[in-house]
C-alpha cells in the first residue's frame, strides 16, 4: 500500500511540470503573438455596462501604442478625450469639460490600476500580468481566447477579471474587462496602422494631454 502511494506521488510529481511546461509554451506563443513591439494603432469601439447608467455607454476612438510602452486612448465620440499612460504617469484631458489631470501610476487609485492592466494586456506584457492573474487559454483554429482570472489573495475589488480574444485571419481583437461589482467594458479593436510614422502622433497627443 505504501509502495503504491509512493509510485502515485512519483507519477504526480513527474506529471506536474510537464503540464506547466506545455501550458507555458502555449501561453508564451500566444503572448508572442499579442505582443506589440512597434508602434501600432487600433480603431476601437467600447461598450461599458455601468451600474448607474440607464443603458450601455458606447464610445469610439483610437488606441495608439508606442514601443516605449506608452498607450494613448483617443476617444472621439461621444466627445473628444485623451487618456494616456506614459512612463510612470497617467494623463487625462477632457477638452470640452476643460479638465486635465496628471497622476503617477504608482500612487494612483483603482482607475489607474485598471488602465495599467489593460495596457499590459493590449501590449502583451505577460510578466506584468502573471503576478495578478491565472491564465486560461482556449484555441479553436485561428480563433484564440485568453481568460485572466484574479489570483486568490489579490486585494480584490480594484482588480478586474479580463479576457482577450482574437482571430488570426482578420486581426480583430476583443477585450472584456469585468469588475467585481458587475460593471464591464468591452473593447472591439481593429488594427488600422503600424510603424514609425505613428510615433509623431503619439508624442503630439501626449503633449496635448499634458498641456505642454
Amino acid at each position, binding site marked *: 500500500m505504501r509502495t503504491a502511494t509512493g509510485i502515485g506521488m512519483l507519477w504526480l510529481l513527474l506529471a506536474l511540470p510537464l503540464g506547466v511546461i506545455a501550458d507555458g509554451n502555449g501561453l508564451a506563443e500566444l503572448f508572442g503573438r499579442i505582443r506589440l513591439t512597434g508602434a501600432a494603432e487600433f480603431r476601437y469601439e467600447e461598450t461599458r455596462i*455601468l451600474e448607474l447608467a*440607464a443603458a450601455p455607454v458606447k464610445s469610439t476612438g483610437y488606441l495608439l501604442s508606442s514601443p*516605449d510602452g506608452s498607450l494613448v486612448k483617443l476617444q472621439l465620440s461621444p466627445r473628444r478625450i485623451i487618456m494616456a499612460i506614459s512612463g*510612470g504617469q497617467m494623463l*487625462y484631458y477632457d477638452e470640452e469639460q476643460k479638465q486635465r489631470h496628471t*497622476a503617477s501610476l*504608482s500612487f494612483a487609485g483603482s482607475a489607474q490600476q485598471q488602465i495599467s492592466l489593460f495596457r499590459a494586456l493590449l501590449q502583451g506584457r505577460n510578466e506584468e500580468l502573471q503576478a495578478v492573474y491565472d491564465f486560461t487559454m482556449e484555441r479553436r483554429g485561428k480563433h484564440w481566447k485568453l481568460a485572466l482570472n484574479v489570483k486568490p489573495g489579490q486585494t480584490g475589488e480594484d482588480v478586474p477579471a479580463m479576457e482577450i480574444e482574437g482571430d488570426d485571419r482578420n486581426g480583430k481583437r476583443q477585450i472584456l474587462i469585468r469588475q467585481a461589482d458587475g460593471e464591464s467594458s468591452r473593447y472591439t479593436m481593429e488594427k488600422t496602422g503600424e510603424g514609425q510614422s505613428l510615433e509623431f502622433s503619439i508624442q503630439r497627443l501626449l*503633449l496635448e494631454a499634458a498641456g505642454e
Partner: protein
Amino acid sequence: MPFIWRKRLFLLLLPLLLGLTAWKIHPETDLNAFFTATDSEDSALLAGLLQSGELSRRYLLMVEPNAASPTAALPKNPAAATATLSLFTAELVRQLAGLDAVERVWPAHGPPREWMSTVQQYAPYHARIYSLSPQDEGKVLFDPGQLVQRAKGLQLALFSPQGGFLKPIAKQDPLLLSLNGFKSMRQVLDIQSRQDSNVTALVLQSRPAALDAEAQASLQNSIRTRFDALNQAAGGVFRLRMTGIPIFTVAAQAEIKRDVTLVSIVSSVGVALVFLLLFRSFAALHWMLLIQMASFAVGALACSLAFSHIHTLTLALGASLIGICTDYPMHVLVHCAKHRQTPVSAAQLLWPSLLMGGLTTIIGYVAMGMTGFPGLGQIAVFAAASIAAALGLTRWVLPALLGDRNLHPAHLPGIGAWVSFCERRRPLLLGVFAISVIAALATLPHIRWMDDLQKLAMDMGEMRREDDAIRSHFTSIEPGRFVIVQAPDMEAALQRSEAVELRLQKLKSSGDLADYHGLFPWLVSKQLQTENATTYAAALNPEFRDAWRVALANAGLSVEKLGSLLPASADPLRPEAVLATPVRQIVSGQIMQQKSGVALSIWLGKHEPAKLAESLTGLEGVRYFSQKDQLDSMAQQHRDRSLNMLAVGIGIMSLFIWLQQRSIVNVLFTLLPSLSAVLFIFATWSVLREEVSFLHVIGLLLSVSLCVDYGIFFMDNRGHDTDITYHAIASSTLTTLASFGALGLAKTPTLPILAISVSLGVTVGFLLCPLLIRSGLEKRSNR
C-alpha cells in the same frame, strides 16, 4: 563624628550617590520644554500647536535632477526625463514606506488614498453637512432649474476615471451634496505641490515625535541611505532635499550636545587649572573635585526628583555651577594656607560668611527660576541643591578630607597693589566713580530692549534658506499666523469656527485672503447640521423630486438607482466618531484641549493681517493669532519679569544680609559693588547699542547673587586680613570666570549672553570691592 569616619562615610556614599543619580536622571532634549513658558494659556497654546500631532512629524522631501552630477544626466527628452523621475520616486516611496519609523509617505500633489476614502464616509450625512450657509446656498443647490445641468455633471463624473470613487457616494447621495463642502478639496487637504514635471515632492509622516531627536536622526539617516542606494543605481542623476520640524530638531540637538560637551569639559578643566595654579596641590585638587562631583550629583538628583525629566541644557548650565561650588572650599583653602590654620578652624571661622554667601547665591538662582521659563526653574532647583551640598561638604567633610595637609597658595600678582591703590587714591577714585554713576544713570533711558525672541534662536540660516526653497514648491499655508477659536466645549467651538469660516469665505472671494484650512466639513456643529437638514427637507418637494428624475433620464442615468432622494439621516455626525477615523490626521494640529475648554485653529494662506483681524470683529471667542506677535509679547513679559525678579532678588538678599549684619549701612556697602557693576554694564550696553534681552538681565541677576558673596566676605573679613580675604575672592572670581566663560564657547546664543553678563558682572564687582567697602579696609592688617 571623628574625621576618619566622616572621610570613610563620604567615600562610601559618593559612589552610591553617583549611581543613584545616573539611574534617576532622564535627560530631556525637547527644546520647547526648556525655552517655552507654559504658565500662561496663550503660551501653552502656542507650545502645544508647535509640538502637536501629525503636522510636526512631517517631512517635506523633494527629488530633483542633480545638476551637479558630472557623470550622468537625465534623458534630454522631457517626457522620458519625467518618466525616469516618476519611476525613481515610486521606488523610493515604496522603500521609505517600509521603514519602521515611517507612518506613511505620499506624493504631495494629492492626499493619501485613505484620506480620499474618508470623504466617501460622509455620503450618508449629505443632507446635514452640505453648506456653511444652507439658507443662502440652498437657493442654488435646490433650484429645480439647475437639475438638468447637475444630472449631466453627475453623468460626466461617473463616466470619467473618477467614476469608481464617486459611485458609492452617488448611490447614497445622488445630488453629491456631501461633496459640496469639499469643493475646494485640493486646497483643503493639506499641503500640495505645485505641478512641476522636473521635481517630485513627497510628504513623509514619521511615527516618532518631532522632538524625539534620536529617533528622528536615525530616520533621516535611513531616508538618506535608501535614497543614496537608489540614486547610485540610477547613475546619481537625482538629489534629495528635505525639510520639516524634525530636521531642525536633529540639528538643534546636535548643537546642544556639542555645547553641553564643550561647556562641561572646558568649564571643568578651567576650574581645575585655576585651582592647580593657585594651590599647586593635586591632592587638594582631587578632594575638591570629589566635593564638586557630589554637589553636581545632588543637584541633578534633586532636579530629577522635582521634575520628571532633566534637560540637557540644565546639565550644561549646571556644569558652570562647578565654578561656584568651588568658591566655598576655595575660601577655606586660601585662609587655611595663608593663616597656616587647620582646615577645620578655617571652615569654622568662615562659616557665617560662607552660609550667607551661599544663601544669597541661592536667592539669585531662585529668583532666576521664577522668571517663567520651565528650564530656568530646573536650573534654580539644580543650583539650590548643589550649592547647599557644596556648603555642607565644605563645612563638615572638607576638613576631614584634607586632614593636616599643608597648602602653599600662589601669590596672585596685582591683588595687593590694587587694594593699596584703592586705599591711597580713594577720594580721587570715588570722585571718578560718582561721575561714572551719574553718567551711567543718564544712559539708562537709551537702552535698546530686544523684543524679538527669534534673535535668541540658534542660527540656522542655511537650513532656513533650504526650508524656504523647498517650501516654495508647495502651495503652503502661512506658518505662524492663524485664527484661534476658543469655547467651553466642542459644539460651541464648532459653531464659532463656522461663523469665522463664513467671514473668511467673503474675504477669500474679495481677494484679501488666498486660502484657508478650516474644519468644515470635516467637523460640523450639531446646530449647523440641523439647519442643513431643515433646509434640505423643505426643498425636497414632489416637484423637485420629479424634476430630478427627468434630469437623470435625460442624462442617461439610472432613475431607479439615483432617483430616490433620501431624507436626512436621523443621527447627526458626531465629532467623536469622526475623530476616530483617519480624519483625525487631516485636522491634526487644529484641535487643542485647553484647561478652559476647546481651542480650534484655522490656518490661513496669504493675507493682509489688519484686514483679516478686522473681519473677525464681533465674533465671540475668536481672535487672530500671530505667533510672531505672541513671541514678541512673551519677550516683553519675560523682560519685565526678569527686571522684577532682579529687584526682588536684590531685596531678599538685602533682607538676609541685614538679618546678619543688623546695619543698613553695612547692607548698602555689601551690595554696592554688585549693584554698581550692574549699573555700569547696563550703561555700557546702552552706549554700545547692544540689544538687551531678558537673558542679559538674568545673567546680571546671577552676577549680583555671586558678587554679593564678595561683598559679604570683604565686609566680614573674618580673618582680619584684607589681603587674604581679597585673595580668596580673587580665587573665586577666577573659577567663576573659568566656568561661566566656558558658556561663551557655546553656539546656542542664550549661553554666550549669560557668559558675558555674569563674567562682566563678577569682574567689575570684584574690582569695585576694595574701593567701595571701607569697613573691610579698616580691619586690614599689614603683613
